[in-house]
């Protein structure tokens, strides 16, 4: 039996009083890659953003149910959102490096945690860039603006930046959808590498990608009422070869969505 890091219990998210996802109960195992797949508008990203409380930034959003991280409810009264986001990192769909140097991008998280010591920062920056498989490409131009990098390099920089706060979980919201196939392959290789140490949850609408990289797959679907629900969750191999639900089968065989 796998060790569980994140768990949602009957999670429902409302935007402007209307549910976007409803009744999601899901368990994310430690040091595995869990893919959330489903057609556009099924609430994949909404679910992902519950894990680091990014939905808090949307004033009209309301969350019911529970999201347990290491057994603690993230939406509980005494939870420090800042601490949550440090321990659960996020990589976005479009690479979004700060318009600062490569070095300062990675050092951003440690700096706001109060780390000032230059040697310590140097060490963190190098370690994270190595972990994100970017060090060899940028080690001679650490103080160049991050926006001079290619899209794929920028996305790996964003991964390095997320690693610098020493998170346990990495949330990835379609991290390769804005990249070309070669850059995508590099990101996927990197994810496999990172899964030795980190728990990864990835949202993707690329089913091949989910099949290639993930250990577990959750399939979500919005019905006629446009409310996203979890249809099926299981080991990726089982979901793609012997889905239990008819709708999962229809989706992965390309019959709709």
């Amino acid at each position, binding site marked *: 039996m796998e060790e569980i890091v994140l768990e949602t219990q009957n999670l429902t998210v409302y935007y402007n009083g209307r549910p976007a996802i409803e009744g999601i109960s899901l368990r994310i195992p430690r040091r595995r890659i869990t893919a959330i797949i489903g057609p556009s508008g099924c609430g994949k990203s909404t679910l992902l953003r519950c894990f680091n409380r990014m939905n808090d930034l949307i004033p009209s959003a309301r969350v019911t149910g529970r999201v347990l991280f290491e057994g603690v409810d993230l939406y509980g009264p005494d939870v420090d959102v*800042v601490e*949550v986001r440090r321990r659960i990192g996020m990589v*976005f769909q479009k690479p*979004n*490096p*700060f318009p600062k140097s490569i070095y300062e991008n990675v050092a951003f998280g440690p700096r*706001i945690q109060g780390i000032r010591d230059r040697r310590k920062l140097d060490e963190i920056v190098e370690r994270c860039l190595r972990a994100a498989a970017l060090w060899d490409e940028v080690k001679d131009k650490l103080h160049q603006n991050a926006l001079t990098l290619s899209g794929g390099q920028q996305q790996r920089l964003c991964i390095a930046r997320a690693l610098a*706060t020493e998170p346990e979980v990495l949330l990835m919201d379609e991290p390769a959808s804005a990249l070309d196939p070669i850059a995508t392959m590099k990101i996927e290789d990197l994810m496999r590498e990172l899964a030795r140490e980190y728990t990864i949850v990835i949202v993707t609408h690329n089913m091949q990608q989910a099949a290639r990289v993930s250990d577990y797959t959750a399939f979500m679907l919005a019905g006629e009422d446009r409310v996203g629900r979890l249809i099926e969750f299981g080991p990726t191999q089982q979901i793609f070869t012997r889905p239990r639900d008819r709708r999962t089968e229809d989706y992965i065989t390309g019959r709709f969505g």
Partner: protein
Amino acid sequence: MGLTSRSAAEIYTVRLQRGVAARWREWGELAIQGLLLFAAMVSVFTTLGIVAVLVVEAIPFFQQVSLVEFLTDPQWTPLFAQKHFGILPLVAGTFLTSAVALALAMPVGLLSAIYLSEYAPVRVRAILKPALEVLAGIPTVVYGYFALLFVTPLLKRVVPDLETFNALSAGLTMGVMIIPLISSLSEDALYAVPSSLREAAYALGATRLEVALRVVIPAALSGIVASFILAASRAVGETMIVAIAAGQRPILTLDPRRAIETMTAYIVQVSLGDTPHGTLEFRTIFAVGLVLFLLTLVFNLIALRIIERYREVYR
């Protein structure tokens, strides 16, 4: 069959030729284009005309007064028997009132921009932003009397030895007038920072203040600096407030409690006074005007350069 098809072809060629209506239309197009060009050139030629007048009128002045005296003499007394033509007191007066104005307007303008862009709920922003911009619509002469009749008496209670006409009161009032310029332009720059950058910072555990200070402001910095420079240019060129409330005493001082005279106020004084046209005394205003023009031109050019650079920052 052959006959009918030929006549159809003939009709077709006839229709392709330009008729009277088409010629009129072409003339119309040309006329419109000319009118638009004329409208665009009016402001260009006016500017060139003003510069030409300033230069032409300033030349005879500099034939009688050396540039060295103009730039180094610490006294400005062209309207007195003992004439001195050192522009330094007027420049000092202008910089003094402008410095006071900017010292107030830069922090307040930037802070209100940060509030509007990063903190204010959508509804508050929708009300506050236009309200702030209304400040810019108040005629400057109103600000001038406001400074003289309201701000100065108020300041006299707290600032000892404050003269009735003084740089402090005029500068502060001018600062209030400039706040909307800075806050509006800075807010545009802050608001234009992509929200993906804010999200990235929040996702790294940054607080709202850290997001504003470490991500949004640095990304918008050139826009903010440009707004400061445009505001400085506005302060240097502002006339009515300083003419009314700052005094008409060109002395070389940096004490904001005293009456001073700015370049703009001096030009008003001479233009409205009984100084005979064509005299050396009268020509001083063209020399002063030229200096003023060059100063604001330099400010605006710097701002333009910075705004251009800022377009490249995140794309």
